[in-house]
């Protein structure tokens, strides 16, 4: 057998092994058809980060649907700033901790966390509480401050960005979760799931000088999509983003959104943001450009959204 054939066969076999017939078996066992299919998006409000994650993942079909035993998982939070969790500059560490645990419990062989920070990476990792959270949960937090960690990949569907250097942890991963925090942003206007992609690439200045919104949409067309986008809106930064100055920039709205679709979750997040501060869809150009690039729809009316209040 040729090496290539062998690899191909084992890949198919592997994929077959991972097929999940639980639903079918359950349906056969009860001889009924399940009326309620898994929702396209789950929005949840009123709980603590870990508890909301629990319920949201359960509602969307359970984490086991996304992670197979032995897979390498990457979690990509926003850890851009040397800010404490109370100032909402970075993704909530409790959420990250709970998610790392869930991934490991689901059988992940390794859970890696990183962000290409803006402030000094060690300060960001520490002050955000995320380094401690990841380590206590058994995950691995890795540096992303040096170009050598990044490898060039092609972005064939990008308009302005045709290739980018992406962190190797993500290139090696089997599954990844995009876990931004919802924030106001001086340049991109809204910092959420799509904007969070800027932390996986090395050269961000290219983004700023080649139409920021288009570049954000472009990088989201990279073929390796996150299994889920999980938007932390426990505390959101409604002004002076993305860094923020003080607690006055923060609104604690105790919410969480989960969806595999990045345009849809950012559209929903913008709606949530508008509950606190007015922000037009037109201003957040990258969401519309994402729709143009067929990454998803900004029309949430046809979507099956499960809303939960605790």
């Amino acid at each position, binding site marked *: 057998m040729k090496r290539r054939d062998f690899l191909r066969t084992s890949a198919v076999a592997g994929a077959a092994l991972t097929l999940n017939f639980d639903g079918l078996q359950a349906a056969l066992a009860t001889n009924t058809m399940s009326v309620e299919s898994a929702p396209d998006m789950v929005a949840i409000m009123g709980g603590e980060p870990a508890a909301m994650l629990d319920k949201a993942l359960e509602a969307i079909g359970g984490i086991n649907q996304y992670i197979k035993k032995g897979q390498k998982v990457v979690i990509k939070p926003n850890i851009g700033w040397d800010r404490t969790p109370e100032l909402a500059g970075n993704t909530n560490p409790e959420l990250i901790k709970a998610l790392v645990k869930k991934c490991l419990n689901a059988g992940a062989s390794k859970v890696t966390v990183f962000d290409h920070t803006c402030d000094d990476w060690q300060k960001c990792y520490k002050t955000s509480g995320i380094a401690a959270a990841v380590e206590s949960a058994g995950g691995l937090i890795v540096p992303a401050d040096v170009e050598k960690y990044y490898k060039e990949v092609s972005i064939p569907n990008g308009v302005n960005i045709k290739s980018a250097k992406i962190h190797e942890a993500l290139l090696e991963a089997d599954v990844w979760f995009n876990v931004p925090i919802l924030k106001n*942003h001086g*340049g991109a206007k809204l910092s959420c799931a799509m904007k969070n992609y800027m932390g996986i690439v090395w050269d961000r200045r290219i983004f700023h000088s080649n139409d920021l919104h288009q570049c954000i949409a472009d990088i989201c067309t990279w073929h390796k999509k996150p299994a889920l986008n999980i938007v932390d809106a426990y505390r959101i930064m409604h002004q002076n983003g993305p860094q923020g100055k003080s607690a006055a920039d923060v609104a604690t709205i105790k919410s969480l959104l989960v969806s595999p679709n990045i345009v849809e979750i950012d559209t929903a997040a913008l709606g949530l943001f508008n509950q606190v501060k007015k922000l037009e869809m037109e201003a957040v150009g990258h969401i519309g450009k994402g729709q143009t690039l067929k990454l998803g729809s900004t029309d949430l009316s046809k979507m099956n959204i499960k809303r939960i209040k605790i």
Partner: protein
Amino acid sequence: MRKQTNYLKGLRVLFAILFFIPILLYFVDFTGKLPQGLHTLLHLQLVPAILGGMIGILIFQLLLALVFGRIYCSVICPAGVFQDIINRLFCIGKKKRKGSMRFSYHKPLNLFRYILLGITVLLALVGITELVVWLDPYSNFGRIAANLFRPLVIWGNNILAGWLMAFDNYTLYHVTIKSVMLSGVIAGLVALLVFVLMVVFRGRFFCNTLCPVGGLLSLVSRYSFFRISFDESVCNTCGSCERSCKAEAIDSKNMAVDTSRCVDCFNCTSTCPKGGLKYRFNPPFKKAKKEEEAVADPQSRRTFLATGMTVTASLPIVAQAGRRMRHRNTNGDQENWGPVTPPGSIDLERFKDVCTGCHICVVKCPTQILKPAGLEYGFDYLLRPHVSYKTNYCNYECTVCGDVCPVHAIKTLTPEEKKVTQVGIATFIIDRCIVNTEGTDCGACSEHCPTQAVHMIPFEGTLTIPKVEPELCIGCGGCESICPVNPHRAIIVKANNVHQVAQLPPEEEVKEFEIDDFGF
């Protein structure tokens, strides 16, 4: 007898190691893991103590030299210990005659060394610290460690880190070196070369001719209470002490020791097979002995005084020249803007007068934005650290450079003081800005501004463009470092030659937000 003398040399070596190793590690540590308190060791250095106006340390060091001789040069001074290490390495594998016993007595170059010392001091008094910067042993050692040893250590680390990474071990991490500049490397190499050549051919020649600290201490150690002297009843003038003396200060034929050059290394006392040299309480006022006369001949004292007078008389001329040299044009277009000096340096002229260019701040700056200057800011700023925002910016709450500066050229700031210390002001050049030239959103500058002195205001359509509030700006360079416009950025920090106090960003009320709907 011999046991006691060996013990002295052992003690000297032990203390030298206790001072040297922490200082060396402090300079090459790139992880920030070493306790920051180690900078206290740097405050003991004489030139920093004098320039920093730390009278207590100066008096202590002079008293130490008066009582025990130049122990400073063998123990406290890292450049002194470093030269001993070079000597040790040089001696490896060599016969004694060509190695550790290769020295011989030379007459002191008193005229040269005291004129040089005089000029150095006088120039420093009128604010021209060039000679201090080049000759200070501590700063020279600092430049060798910071610009030569540290990059080597980091390269070693990077190789190891890459290797460990393959095993998912991130205890070591890759470090990019950004603060090593050509000027620093050249300065380090020159200093290293000078040390090596002088040590190989003439032992502690640097310390006894060029070094201003050695010169100053020699004036005191001439009269030191404890000193090495011959025991004429035992000595058979075999000359082994003379050959072991790296300071070339022992005249064995005349049984005389020049205590002005002796650095108390105790090599001679441990070499003498007879115990013919002793370190003992033997102050010059006890009795004007033969050896004292033999070395400190009146001729040299007379020349010294005459030279001193001449130099003092020329003081006003030197001062005038100095002033002219220092009044450079610091205005003009932005390519000629003056250097941004570190927060806590207060004022450009003051900073130039005090900084000795030891590069400990360069080494300790966590974002590596402090860089040794070449000639871009003029000859009188050479090797001083300036703030460069090309790759990174000054962390809002960081005060490390001021904390470690042994000269207090960079004053220690509290985080509260730091947050309002305005080292410069961001200057926005709209003709270069992406938002204006390309008609697309950017906002990278405002994004990185910790005080929102750079904030976005409405422009065309939904576009927003930066605006600077100068009174809020502290010149941290967050904006400049991230501006995507090349090669000339659209927002640049213009240095304040005298640092100002910025306003604190206005406090805003913390509001409670109650929402009960998702909004979609």
